[in-house]
């Protein structure tokens, strides 16, 4: 009785191990089915989903104009104080004062990529882009000003 149990245990152990080994051996002999990506080497061919939330940017057109009115909707929508809108008053040719952004300060180090600011923006001035390699040696480099120098608001956006 004892011997019978012992032999059947050994038999079961060996067959179940061989079953597993056959599976792993299959992939060993079929390297094309392995899907591992060699990340830092394949940077040139790496394709990220276009919706991937990596960083907030403000798109500018060829005339260096953006669509941000400085309404601070993004600042209010942000849960962790990532965005700070600094506004100024421009003087129009007619002599009227008009509100415009001086700087849209974006703290990447505080951002959790929740996308709430992009959803809240009424004029689609900011968007998420799929850049993801954000490591730098100094934390202060992660504080960015999103509007380019000397950029202006596009005509017709209120």
């Amino acid at each position: 009785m004892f011997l019978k149990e012992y032999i059947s245990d050994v038999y079961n152990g060996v067959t179940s191990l061989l079953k597993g080994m056959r599976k792993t051996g299959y992939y060993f002999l079929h390297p094309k089915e392995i899907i591992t990506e060699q990340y830092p080497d394949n940077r040139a061919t790496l394709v990220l989903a276009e919706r991937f939330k990596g960083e907030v940017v403000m798109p500018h057109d060829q005339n260096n104009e953006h669509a941000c009115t400085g309404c601070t909707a993004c600042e209010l929508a942000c849960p962790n104080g990532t965005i700070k809108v600094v506004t100024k008053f421009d003087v129009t040719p007619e002599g009227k004062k008009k509100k415009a952004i001086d700087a849209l300060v974006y703290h990447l180090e505080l951002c959790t990529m929740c996308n709430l600011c992009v959803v809240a923006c009424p004029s689609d001035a900011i968007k998420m882009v799929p850049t993801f390699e954000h490591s730098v040696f100094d934390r202060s480099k992660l504080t960015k000003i999103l509007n380019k120098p000397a950029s202006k608001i596009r005509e017709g956006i209120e």
Partner: protein
Amino acid sequence: MYNQTEIIKDTTDLGPEGELVINMGPQHPATHGVLHLVVTLNGETIKKIEPHLGYIHRSIEKMCESLTYRQFIYVTSRMDYLSSHINNLGCALLIEKGMQIEVPERAKYIRVILSELTRIASHELWLGAMAMDLGAFTPFFYTFREREMITEIMEETCGARLTMNYIVPGGVMYDIHPNFQKKVKAFIKQFKEKVTEFEDLVTNNVIFQSRTKGIGILSAEDAISFGCTGPVARASGVRCDIRKLYPYDVYDKVEFDEVIETAGDSFARYIVRVKEMNQSIRIIEQLIDSIPEGDFVGKTKNVLKLPKGEFYTRVETARGEFGVFIVSEGGTNPYRIKFRSPGFSNLSALNHMAAGSKIGDLMATMGTLDLVIPDIDR
């Protein structure tokens, strides 16, 4: 041949001088995070387990009180990060219930499909990590191959791989990607082909079976009294699936079985999770072709204000019942938030399950509880 039950039920008391206290964690690789277990040993037999919490406490409940109803949803992704989508869904459901926001059918379908994908991804990760706890490293790569397909779907539609924040009160943040249906169908096809690999590698493995069968037994009465939910309680024969008992979104329209096992041991918990993955596939198959056209988000006010009162909703995450309780004063922020997380209650049963067994079996018992430490600590 040895008699297994005799060995695992060794209760000879060596007295206080034979006692040994071992600190497992907070940096132990098999605790999956910063869980600190103070294990009192009697020779090799476990006498008592005391979990020490607080290493990853971020005071999420207090943090939510200073955020608006739109903002606090994203924080819940950081609790149970493996089923972050379902946590977000629970919070959104509560706000919709409190404010009587109508959710479009299309959004409901998308939410349920993504919830089930999240559940599969979570169970896949658990399966690989659990096998790794028991010394098998290969299944980890096999499960991550299927999980990668899900994270790719999430990346394409939600814009993130783990903490999606795709659900907003009233629907979802943006419409699904045009490739969504095609990719999900490709995933279902591959999953059905490859699920047999797990059975060859893990389920039918003699070493795995002898290390999990009869280990960490939890009776149905104990499961109820400890407040266990999810696969842990269902493996003990307790009906507790929120999707069946209190259906939300479109769970009342789909057909699926609540997986119940009665053994209550580690192997039963393993079987429940593997079968649950197949049930999730069944739910997705029923919904994926019939996503209705229409809006993906309902009409909501710009500033959400819950009416004065107390609100509670629950959803079934991959680990069990996740409950959100909000006391509102009628303002834009919640007055008090309490989360009922499944991991905390499941952990409380660990001492009961593991006391009296060998220390080597503790890994098998703890692994099948599927603990996510940020969910326990919050």
